[in-house]
């Protein structure tokens, strides 16, 4: 039985999508399967441990041991006070200060910049040591060491065209992250206010999303291939496949959405539900990217 809705203005009874028979049903199954795949990947990713490592400096007999520690941006460093006196871990540039760490206690911080980070104990200024932070996932574009990185860490105001994948990917990510919620919001508002214009916006924005996200994914893969072993292995594996899956799903969603648009009907609740699942996956994907860039 075929049911075609030719009404251009959405009505309550017209909210059911006019889907053509078994072909449309198959399409819906594919999309639902894709959504389940994404959701499954989310569950898998949620169980994957983070791979930013933790390093330990022992404070003992008025010394930091080791006195020089190589870390990567994004690593967490823990200072264990095994001395009989209280000490502080105070960066010379003021970027961190533990406060007094009592004997037997410890303190940790995540290193967010690269270069040499000298630190000392405030009550015992003769206790001095340093961290040498190499570029990790967080600072792929900062390839220089030494004190120059203090400037990098604080960000330069000078603009230069993005050329490297680790510059391009974060820019494209903004579009991917913004367009999907906007498309969904437009459709939801369109249903709420029964405004065809909002539905048209929802359709077009979804097409933009489907067009831009593969570029975002490509830039991400480029980043990974350009800097092998510098990104947290487990996080990046989940991130790259979830991203790739999302790009494919967005293409399917855009095609599906465009069919509603061509028929000038509002998108079905099924479509909106799948788009919502995709949005949740996208938020999780963003949190993984953030974890790699900014540490835990």
């Amino acid at each position, binding site marked *: 039985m075929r049911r075609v809705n030719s009404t251009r203005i959405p009505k309550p009874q017209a909210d059911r999508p006019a889907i053509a028979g078994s072909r449309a049903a198959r399409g819906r199954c594919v999309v639902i399967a894709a959504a389940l795949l994404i959701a499954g990947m989310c569950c898998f990713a949620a169980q994957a441990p983070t791979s930013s490592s933790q390093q330990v400096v022992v404070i003992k007999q008025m010394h930091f041991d080791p006195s020089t520690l190589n870390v990567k941006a994004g690593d967490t460093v823990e200072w264990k006070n095994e001395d009989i006196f*209280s000490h502080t871990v105070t960066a010379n540039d003021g970027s961190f200060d533990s406060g007094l760490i009592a004997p037997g206690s410890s303190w940790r911080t995540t290193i967010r910049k690269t270069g040499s980070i000298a630190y000392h104990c405030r009550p015992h200024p003769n206790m001095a040591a340093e961290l040498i932070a190499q570029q990790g996932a967080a600072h792929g574009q900062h390839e220089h060491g030494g004190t120059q990185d203090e400037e990098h860490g604080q960000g330069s105001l000078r603009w230069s065209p993005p050329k490297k994948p680790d510059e391009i990917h974060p820019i494209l990510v903004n579009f991917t992250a913004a367009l999907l919620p906007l498309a969904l919001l437009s459709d939801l508002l369109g249903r709420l206010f029964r405004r065809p214009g909002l539905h048209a916006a929802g359709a077009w924005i979804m097409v933009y999303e489907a067009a831009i996200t593969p570029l975002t994914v490509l830039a991400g893969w480029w980043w990974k291939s350009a800097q092998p072993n510098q990104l947290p292995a487990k996080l990046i594996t989940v991130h790259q496949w979830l991203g790739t899956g999302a790009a494919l799903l967005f293409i399917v969603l855009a095609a599906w959405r465009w069919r509603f648009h061509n028929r000038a009907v509002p998108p079905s609740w099924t479509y909106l539900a799948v788009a919502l699942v995709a949005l949740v996956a996208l938020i999780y994907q963003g949190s993984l990217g953030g974890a790699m860039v900014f540490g835990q």
Partner: protein
Amino acid sequence: MKKLVSTVVGFAFTLSVGAIAHAQAPTDPQIVGIVQTANRIDISQARLALRKSTNPQVKEFANQMISDHTALEKSVSDLANKLGVKEEPSDTATQLKQQAAEETKKLSALKGKDFDREYASHEIAYHQAVIDAATSTLIPNAKNAELKSALQGAAPLLQGHLQHAQQLQQSLQGGSSSGR
């Protein structure tokens, strides 16, 4: 002028403690007695600073002296008990107490910034004197290897306090010059 007086007094104090420590070779029980006396003196003067000073930096320094020297005192006490060494009086310990009593009297008469400056200046001289005495007399004369090692281990702490006191003094001088 006050700074000059403090420096001269500190220098005299250093010479005095150094001379006492050099005068005779202390035994292990006397070394323990000297170290514990030095700890207690610094704790006592830090408590005085906590009562009299309103400067947060001075109070922070004083709290650290109490915390560190209390820990050091306990550590030396535990070691002495373990080694079966009972602290004994000595001329050096007696002289340290007399000097401390004079300094306490002097500090008690001072107030505000004058107190803070004198306290910082004295802490510099005191820690320098104790470091000198430990290096030149106490460590070389310690017979027990563990006691010797413990004294050597305490040297970085005293050096740290000396530097901290020097920073405090500079900070106090900076504050006074900008405030006037």
